[in-house]
């Protein structure tokens, strides 16, 4: 039995809009296990991204607790959360969010050098990871506007992985990619997971969800479904798809 890496207790997140409180996450208890590829699904506005950001320390919960390896992070200041994130988390965003004025290699190193000292090993590691994701040497000195969406997202993934995060968060990483580029990106996620990386990913795409080992379904700020699957590639894909579809349909997807 894998140990818990991330746990919440009575997690609540509300937003105030024109004096009206909107409760997006309500008293949510959740346990994310180490080594899992957890996929969070739900209809639009169900609180998927809000949950992801609350779990990852990107945002503070309104109430409740978030434990990362038994350490409560809910009371951390913004700067303490930044330090927490840099040491433990990697992020892959739907819009990639590469820094426009930095080259591919510098984008990766910007994430790395805040945690690690500069060294030949670090630079080689960044180059190696970029190569593994399909980028060649010429791409290293390109600026984001010179990359395709898929290439940019691969850089985003490498930037997220460069610090060997304990957990990798991804918010609809293929949302803006065509199917071919999306598949390449998902293959990378699958490969990374096989290497033991814990991943929490938000998606509303079935193909993406199939890559996970656990699917949580969110509705009205609470988890209403929790479905487990074997690692991707270890079972029949068609059967895997059917079972997941059935689960999702049961959830009202």
């Amino acid at each position, binding site marked *: 039995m894998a140990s818990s890496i991330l746990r919440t207790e009575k997690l609540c997140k509300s937003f105030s809009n024109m004096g009206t409180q909107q409760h997006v996450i309500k008293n949510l208890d959740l346990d994310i296990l180490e080594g899992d590829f957890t996929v969070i699904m739900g209809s639009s506005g169900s609180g998927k991204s809000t949950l992801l*950001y609350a779990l990852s320390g*990107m*945002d503070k919960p309104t109430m409740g607790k978030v434990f990362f390896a038994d350490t409560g992070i809910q009371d951390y200041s913004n700067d303490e959360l*930044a330090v927490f994130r840099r040491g433990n988390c990697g992020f892959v965003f739907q819009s990639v969010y590469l820094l426009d004025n*930095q080259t591919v290699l510098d984008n990766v190193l910007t994430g790395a050098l*805040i945690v690690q000292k*500069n060294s030949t090993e670090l630079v080689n590691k960044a180059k190696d990871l970029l190569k593994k994701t399909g980028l060649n040497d010429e791409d290293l000195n390109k600026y*984001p506007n010179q990359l395709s969406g898929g290439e940019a997202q691969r850089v985003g993934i490498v930037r997220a992985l460069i610090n060997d995060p304990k957990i990798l968060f991804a918010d609809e990483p293929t949302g803006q990619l065509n199917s071919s580029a999306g598949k390449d990106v998902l293959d990378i996620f699958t490969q990374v997971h096989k290497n033991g990386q814990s991943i929490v990913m938000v998606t509303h795409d079935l193909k993406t969800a199939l890559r996970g080992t656990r699917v949580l379904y969110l509705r009205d700020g609470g988890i209403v479904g929790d479905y487990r699957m074997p690692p991707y590639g270890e079972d029949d894909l068609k059967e895997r798809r059917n079972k997941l579809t059935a689960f999702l349909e049961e959830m009202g997807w």
Partner: protein
Amino acid sequence: MNILRLSLFNLKKNKREAAAISFLTMVTVLMMAIFVANYSKLNKAFDESFKASGSVNSIVLFKTDTYHSEFKSILTDNYHTDRLSINDYIFSGATDVRADSGDLVSYNFLFVTEKTERRLENFIKVDAMTDDEVRALSHPLWLPVNFKLSKGLKTGDTMTIVKAGKDYPFTIAGFYETGLESSDGFGFKLILSDEDYDLFSMIFSSGSLMSYNCIGLSFDSDDFDFDEYIRKCEESSSYNLMNYGVFLSYEYEKANETMFSSMFLMLVAFLSAITMISALFMITHKVSNDIEDQMQQIGVLEALGYKAREISLAYLYEYVISGGLGCLLGIIVTFLITPFMDSFNEAMLGRVVHGNTEVPGIIAVALSIFVIVILFALLKTRTVKKYPPVTALRRGIGTHNFKRNVLPLEGTKGNINLRLAMKSLLSDLKSCIGVTVCIVTAGLTILFSMVSFDFFKDGTKGLESMMGIDTEVVMVNVMTGADPEAIRDRILEMPEVRKAFVSYTLNSVSIKGSDLSATTQAYYDYNETENIFPTSGRFPEHDNEVMISFRRSQLEHLNLGDNIVLEDGGLEKSYVITGITSSMLNSGSSVYFTSDGYRRIKLNARPDTVHVYLNDGVSDEEFEERIAEVFGVSAKEAEGDSSSEGSLEDKIRAAADEKIAVMLSQYGVTSVDYAVMIGDKLITGNSRPYVIKEVSSWRGIIKSQMGPVSQTFKTFTLLSALLIGFIVAVILSIIAASAVRRQRMSLGIMKGLGYSSKDLMKQMALRMMPVIIISLVIASVATVFFNRFFWFAIVGLLPKTNITVIILTDIVLVLFCYFVTYLGAGKIRKISVTELMTE
């Protein structure tokens, strides 16, 4: 309407920037309006006051023993004059006046009677006692209104003139408007009762005062050339008048009285220009940021059919509103502080300044600045044209980077925050030009203010350091025939004395081809002096060498190695210039000789003065008492000291001694013997007991003349530094805040990557540092040159710029700018990563 709404939206969204532009515009208008309104008011006030006094426009002063009745006809025969009158006067240089605190302050005084005053001008009284009250006073005194306005004296106050240790208390009967002799520089004309005038004529030097209106005379006019007139007088009388004739005119008086006020107003105008540059920089910076920030909005508006010109107007309206508000506030504040400025002008000028506010001038200034602001904004807002809808919707090409990768992170060795800050800076050097201009100008002002503040912080010490005389020295002028070296030796034995050496009294010679005659200073060994330093070259060492003032070297284009020919009594001698020094004495006319060199041109000169340096804490008065103890009373002190007590013989001896003192101190008499037969008794005496002619020092007069000016400038320079520092703080915090707004996305991403707000604020502050440091280095160098230029332009001095003050101010400014930018970037804390991600 929609366009105006966009303007209002921008104003509301960027309240701080709009407020900053309003503030900078207000300060610019305020200071420029102060300059314009008060510069003309100051000149007008002098003219009105002069006119109201009914004063003649020129006077020439001669000492009694150097005046000849023919001088009058030389004037009338050669120049167009009217209202010519010849009067008596009493002159007393560096006369001590006892203040309420007991301290002695020195002034140059010209004493006249009411009768003489009425010949010179209309004797218009201000705050005067009634005639009955005046008649009841034992010693009434009328003072120029300057004493009321700038020195805080009131009618009925007691003013005590101290001479030779004796107090002469007067009651101020009132003040009067005067044309000439109303300034610290040329001295003050005081009106005494006839009895007091007679008393003072026994104590002080008297002379003839030739007053007249010289028709068509102006400062640069050839109509009256004083030196030429004096030469004609010398030719007709065979007197040496170069040292004993003084010329005062309307132009001299005006230039002298308005000099420091004008200097102050020039500095205010300079500050206004600096603020203006800052405001214009802020505007260009803000317009660029706004356009970049709202690029997509511009694209949408263009797509909807708005013309680029119409969209430009949306941005322009902002500056019409914020700039207009600033100008309006500037006008209001200018009017509000007018009474204060009038009081300040009165104190500086020493004349009544009438309260007519220069409304057209102030409005014209405000309108001009408003137009400049709008023109500048208009030029910048026209850049909207560069973005057609498609380009604008794609946010221009701001996100498209094809530049060389400067400072790749691969080579990072130290702190990543520093590396990222430098990388960001080098990637966008163009944006630094405005900041550089702004910091250079503001830095120059702050550094110059701090250098000036340091210069004035010890009162008059800074000015003294540039005067080219030993201001701390007490000069003991010995009687002709007395042995100055023997006197020096006895003075050196006094416990009050630190150092003493023999020298010469100041004198005057002509310089061939120069309008500025030479005030001579001669020393045996310049290394013994403590306040005379060559700023270039060296002290004279041989009898054919001289050192001249920086002012003379600049005005007459004289350099080291050049020759000058000095003339005196028909004698001409050539000297080589070996040194140049800063010298303020007599408009920088000093020429410094060796002892032998001085005697080449002044053949009969003998050392006649002992320069004495007192130990710390010993006052001039204490030393004078000590001198009297050791050498007996000086001839100057003995003047007017006839005692009326004792036997007839005592009375006769006292009267005779007093007369001898006057002859010795005033008329150049070197030795007197007398014998008086009273009945069968012969009373004899001589001048041999007198050894000391006079004891004097520069300290009192420097304190009274320069003290208030030093205090004013000290305060002003400190306030200037604080004001500009505040403006720098506003600008940097606004730059930081707008950079945060512009880079919101990048900063959010960085936060997502684990950079804390502090890291990012640090990056923002570090990014500015190279620009600030380079700007301050430029400003520091500029300050050294500007400081020299300023002091030379104003008083012809060459100041020593305190480099330590510049370095310390630079360090403080760098730290100040770092923290201001750091705090200004505080909005980074408010950037929510999640909001950014979910946009």
